[in-house]
């Protein structure tokens, strides 16, 4: 019994990681239609930002402050990845809107550059982030151990989704973003600075990837190729969920996370992934636009 309860918790935890990693992509790919192959590298940047903040705290601040470094690491990861995203948008992406194939190639090149940059700055070996003491260990409940880190990540994911929801659907800025993404010409003619909206939205999506990187540093290693492990899964989450909807990203992350862990438990890790991939492909044959598709009256929808 314990095994199954823990397995469901594992599924939830993996789902939450997928959702967090895909949330930024849901904005840059889902809303802006930019196929950003460097999305994984923004996750990597967020993880390294966490590493930097940790080093700052352990070097320059008293030891009992160390427990609080993660509170600063999350916004720092968001900011650093966001700034890098802004630069990327300015230098490369803005020339490539609406040219999917070119943007795949260019952003893939960017991802290689960023990986090599990380290798030059931080060295080739992986670095270690020590989790704050308050997050080590786990919650003992009915004889089962629920790691605090995983509970924390689930809470962080909920907070991020609430934040993004409020921004996109409850603020005037979000209304502008949605207007530009749905009908650029009309939005521009109503006086919205589409250029600025594009840049900020892309930076915001990249920043969210940075938060995912901060969270991932709690579970695994930080290395220059960290992001490549997540890029396929995150695209799968967004495509399965339905491009352009937040609810779709939640559902896609949940299904793929649960599917991965369940099939891994029943078979093994390699076969489990194959089964999930196959099921997703079959599902997309049946519903090419994913679980939740956004309805729009714009003429350029295909």
């Amino acid at each position, binding site marked *: 019994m314990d095994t199954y309860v823990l397995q469901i918790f594992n599924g939830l935890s993996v789902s939450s990681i997928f959702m967090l990693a895909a949330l930024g992509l849901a904005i840059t790919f889902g809303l802006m239609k930019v196929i950003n192959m460097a999305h994984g590298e923004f996750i990597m940047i967020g993880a390294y930002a966490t590493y930097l903040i940790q080093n700052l705290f352990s070097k320059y601040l008293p030891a009992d402050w160390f427990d609080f470094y993660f509170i600063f690491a999350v916004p720092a990861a968001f900011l650093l990845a966001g700034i890098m995203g802004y630069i990327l948008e300015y230098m490369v992406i803005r020339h490539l809107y609406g040219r999917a194939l070119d943007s795949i190639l260019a952003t893939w090149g960017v991802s290689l550059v960023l990986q090599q940059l990380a290798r030059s700055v931080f060295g080739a*070996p992986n670095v270690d982030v020590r989790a704050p003491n308050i997050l*080590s260990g786990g919650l003992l409940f009915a004889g089962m151990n629920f790691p605090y880190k995983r509970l924390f990540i689930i809470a962080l994911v909920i907070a991020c989704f609430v934040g993004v929801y409020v921004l996109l659907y409850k603020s005037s800025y979000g209304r502008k973003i949605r207007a530009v993404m749905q009908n650029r010409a009309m939005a521009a003619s109503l006086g919205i600075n589409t250029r600025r909206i594009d840049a900020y939205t892309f930076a915001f999506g990249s920043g969210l990837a940075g938060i995912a990187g901060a969270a991932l540093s709690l579970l695994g290693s930080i*290395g220059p190729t960290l992001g490549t*492990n997540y890029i396929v899964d995150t695209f799968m989450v967004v495509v399965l969920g339905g491009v352009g909807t937040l609810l779709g990203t939640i559902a896609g992350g949940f299904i793929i996370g649960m599917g991965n862990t369940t099939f891994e438990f029943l078979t093994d*890790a390699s076969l489990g992934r194959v089964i999930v991939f196959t099921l997703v492909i079959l599902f997309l044959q049946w519903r090419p636009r994913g679980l939740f598709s956004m309805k729009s009256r714009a003429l350029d929808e295909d």
Partner: protein
Amino acid sequence: MNMKYKRMMKLKKSAALALSALFVASSLLTGCGSTQSAKGNSGESGGDTIKVGVLHSMSGTMAISEVSVKDAELMAIDEINAKGGVLGKKIEPVVEDGASDPAVFAEKAKKLLQQDKVATVFGCWTSASRKAVLPVFESLKGLLWYPVQYEGMEASPNICYTGAAPNQQIVPAVEWLLKNKGKKIFLIGSDYVFPRTANKIIKAELQAEGGELVGEEYTPMGHTDYSTIINKIKEAKPDVVFNTLNGDSNVAFFKQLKDSGISSKDLTTCSVSVAEEEVRGIGADNMAGHLVSWNYYQTTNTPENVEFVKNYKAKYGADRVTDDPIEAGYNAVYLWAAAVEKAGSTDVEKVREAMKGLTFKAPEGTVKIEGENQHLWKPVRIGEVQPDGSIKEIWSTSEAIRPDPFLKTYSWAEGLSN
């Protein structure tokens, strides 16, 4: 119309600019390590230097491990050069990046042998990369020095294996675990040739020596979530988890094992692909108390090792560590140089003849090249990871063990080698 056309052209131009800037930047960055040496005559005895190839991944997922082996090999070359080189000539390394891709390894091996005409090559890490360059070395009559422990079942005349054969690492470790830690074994590994072959050997050994297999799991390279496998381990209740995971996955596995409330006191794990360098990445506090099996540790107590560790840290920084493959790469250069001196030539055939039975006072203790299969006689050591990240030896063979890559001396291993 005209304006639109102009705007499009402008867009295209700036996009092309951005793209080309990108490619220039990326080729600058990745190109740095590729060919560090272009001058010098051919590697043959004619010139005033002898060229050797150094072929490791300086980029990609294996860079984490291979860069430090490359550093150790270059250090050995520098040391030999400082003492006058070999045959009165300086050794000139030609460094190539295998980019963690077996196909690139094969291509670069061909380039080193045909274009640079190197006398020998030190390189590779994964079995996949070794298997990819093997036909190149055999057909072009080159000589490769391979510095990493591996799954055995191979003895190419064109490769000298300076890491452990299975009977010098995996087999004695399993024997020791069965005797001291318990009979129920859980196998976990990355899904490729080394873990699969190693586990085939372990399963045969378990059967012969009364062990019990309670689980066997493989995960794809780069797998990062081990919660499900840890759950399976909890259910199977093994005495020992034998770990052949490679690369980053180890970090995720050990971090998550600790988070789920399992410490080294509750469960013994023994790893064969985690050395001091990897412990740094995993975090010593996540791995303290867990076991590993190798032939060499940074703490190994020989005068040669004290010197080796001191020099390595002086050259590359006090925060760097040495470990088994680093030491094996270092040894390879010295063994090759000694064989060349003995043969009086860099000719591969003559060097191969000369290296049979050659000994070297290595940091791990005296090693000897076994003429029959070109592997090394090596001592076996089981170690325990300490809270400071070093590894303390807790058991070792009293002397060097003869390499037996095909496990011919074990009756239970019959039929494994084909």
